[in-house]
C-alpha cells in the first residue's frame, strides 16, 4: 500500500520553461512533505519541504504546493535549468521519524 504516489515516471522540458512534478498521497495524517533530488551515482539531497498546515512554500526557483482537499503535492521549478535534470522523489513524514518515498520521477531539462 503505497501511501505516496508519483504516477509519471518521467518529464522532459525545455530550458527556461516551468517544470511541474506531481505527487499524490492516500493518508492525511502527515506532518510534512518533502522533495529530494538525486543525481546518478550520488545520494538523494533534500530540496524543499512543506508543513501540512501550509499551502505553499517557496525557495528561489523551487515552489511546493499542497492541496489537502485533493491530497496532491506539486513541485514547480521556474525557470528550469539543465542542471535540474535528475530524479525527484517526494516523501511524507508523520507521527514518527520515518519517511515514506514515492517511486521517483526523472526530469530532463533540454538546453
Amino acid at each position, binding site marked *: 500500500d503505497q501511501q505516496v504516489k*508519483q504516477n509519471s515516471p518521467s518529464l522532459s522540458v525545455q530550458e527556461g520553461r516551468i517544470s511541474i512534478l506531481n505527487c499524490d498521497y492516500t493518508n492525511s495524517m502527515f*506532518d*510534512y512533505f*518533502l522533495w*529530494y533530488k538525486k543525481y546518478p*551515482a*550520488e*545520494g*538523494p*539531497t*533534500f530540496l524543499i*519541504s512543506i*508543513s501540512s498546515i501550509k499551502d505553499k512554500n517557496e525557495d528561489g526557483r523551487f515552489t511546493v504546493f499542497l492541496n489537502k482537499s485533493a491530497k496532491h503535492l506539486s513541485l514547480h521549478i521556474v525557470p528550469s535549468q539543465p542542471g535540474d535534470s535528475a530524479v525527484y*522523489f517526494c*516523501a511524507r*513524514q508523520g507521527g514518527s*521519524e*520515518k*519517511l*515514506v*518515498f*514515492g*517511486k*521517483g520521477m526523472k526530469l530532463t531539462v533540454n538546453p
Partner: protein
Amino acid sequence: DAGITQSPRHKVTETGTPVTLRCHQTENHRYMYWYRQDPGHGLRLIHYSYGVKDTDKGEVSDGYSVSRSKTEDFLLTLESATSSQTSVYFCAINNPPGGTDTQYFGPGTRLTVL
C-alpha cells in the same frame, strides 16, 4: 554536506555469502537509516536506529539485520545474500525532534549478488 560515508562503495558477492555494509557519520546525529533503491520502487526503508543499541524494522527488513554500537556507526548485514538483494543501498541520518524531518543521505553502496 553532512558528514556521511559509506563503505564499501561497490561490492560484488556470491549468493549465500554474508555481507556487511558500513555507514559512518561525523555529525553526532541520533537517528540513522538504511534504505535500498530499486527501479520502480523508489527508496524503501530497511531498518533504522534511534540511538545506540536502539533499532527497529522498516518496510523491507526481511533478510537484513543491523547493529549500532556507537553513535557514529550503523552496520547493515545480509546474513546470506540473495540475488534479490542486488540493489543500491543508502544510509541517512537526522537529528529530531522538531521541525522538518530532513534526512541527509550518504553516497550509496552498489551491491551485486551473483
